């Protein structure tokens, strides 16, 4: 084929949009389609085993999935017939373990897979979740993202010591300020050149490059030198479910993502600068398969 045609073809291919593929999960035997745990051959009942999640991660990576998304709830679904009986008996998103604790292991056995994890900000202070996601940002080399939710279950509120969950608009009012604090912590504390690791002078980090972040707002108060995000300019990617888009806007145009479709933390480099394209991953995985 003439070189000019080759060039034109590769330019056309470069302009094509890639479809991203996401696997939808929850750390439970019975996620959204209740009952499939009973399907012959289903391994959903192994949800409390790390072996299961290692296999999920490896299969997703091998299958060129871009990401695995985890839904999460803190309570039990107890509205139907005024009882939690059906949810408990039928494993309707219950029991539900903490998905965040799966991520380091799943990240360790993969290289390209990204992780979107639901975390409810209604029941713990901003510093706590900022720290947890910052830690995961380090451990996954930037492959973590946060699905910001405020909860929908009164049972979760009761578990946390409230009589019922706060009203919808109040939850989103709180969420807006919450994320303002989180971004301040991620971006305002450590300068990129703070860590010097100067063993000769026994200086790990420069004191004048690490700042206490202070926030005194309507709902939250925090003063902290936080654990740093990998780079201040690239905090963990955050989004919120599109179905909940009735609330107040979250800071900085936090994107709405329909979590049953696909997200991809496109502005997160994974150590080497950029995420590998699907074509690059295919080539790598094909190489691995042919040599095994």
């Amino acid at each position, binding site marked *: 084929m003439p070189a000019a045609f080759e060039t034109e073809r590769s330019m056309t291919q470069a302009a094509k949009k890639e479809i991203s593929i996401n696997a939808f999960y929850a750390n439970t035997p019975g996620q959204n389609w*209740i009952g499939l745990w009973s*399907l012959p051959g289903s391994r959903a009942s192994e949800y409390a085993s790390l072996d299961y999640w290692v296999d999920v991660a490896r299969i997703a990576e091998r299958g060129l999935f871009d990401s695995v998304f985890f839904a999460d709830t803190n309570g039990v679904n107890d509205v139907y017939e005024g009882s939690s009986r059906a949810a408990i008996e*039928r494993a309707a998103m219950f029991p539900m373990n903490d998905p965040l604790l799966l991520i380091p292991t799943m990240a360790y056995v993969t290289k390209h897979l990204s992780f979107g994890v639901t975390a409810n900000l209604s029941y713990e202070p901003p510093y706590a979740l900022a720290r947890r996601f910052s830690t995961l940002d380090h451990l996954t080399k930037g492959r973590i993202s946060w699905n910001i939710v405020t909860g929908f279950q009164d049972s979760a509120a009761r578990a946390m010591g409230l009589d019922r969950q706060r009203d919808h608009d109040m939850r989103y009012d709180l969420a807006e300020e919450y994320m303002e604090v989180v971004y301040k912590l991620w971006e305002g504390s450590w300068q990129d050149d703070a860590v010097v690791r100067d063993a000769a002078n026994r200086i790990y980090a420069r004191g004048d490059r690490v700042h206490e972040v202070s926030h005194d707002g309507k709902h939250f108060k925090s003063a902290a030198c936080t654990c740093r995000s990998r780079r201040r300019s690239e905090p963990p990617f955050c989004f919120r479910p599109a179905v909940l888009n009735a609330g107040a806007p979250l800071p900085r145009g936090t994107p709405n993502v329909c979590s049953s479709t696909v997200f991809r933390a496109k502005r997160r480099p994974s150590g080497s600068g950029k995420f590998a394209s699907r074509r690059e991953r295919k080539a790598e995985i094909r190489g691995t398969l042919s040599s095994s």
Partner: protein
Amino acid sequence: MATVVTAPTEAEARDKFEMLARHVDAEGMLALRSVYRESIFRRT
């Protein structure tokens, strides 16, 4: 050895869907959807 994956035929896809549908638990789905309906769509 690479695994070759091929798309299912329409009949295979229908069989698979029907098998999945047989295992979806109606009462469990009601338990899940009831809380969604009350908490999200009514915006309580």
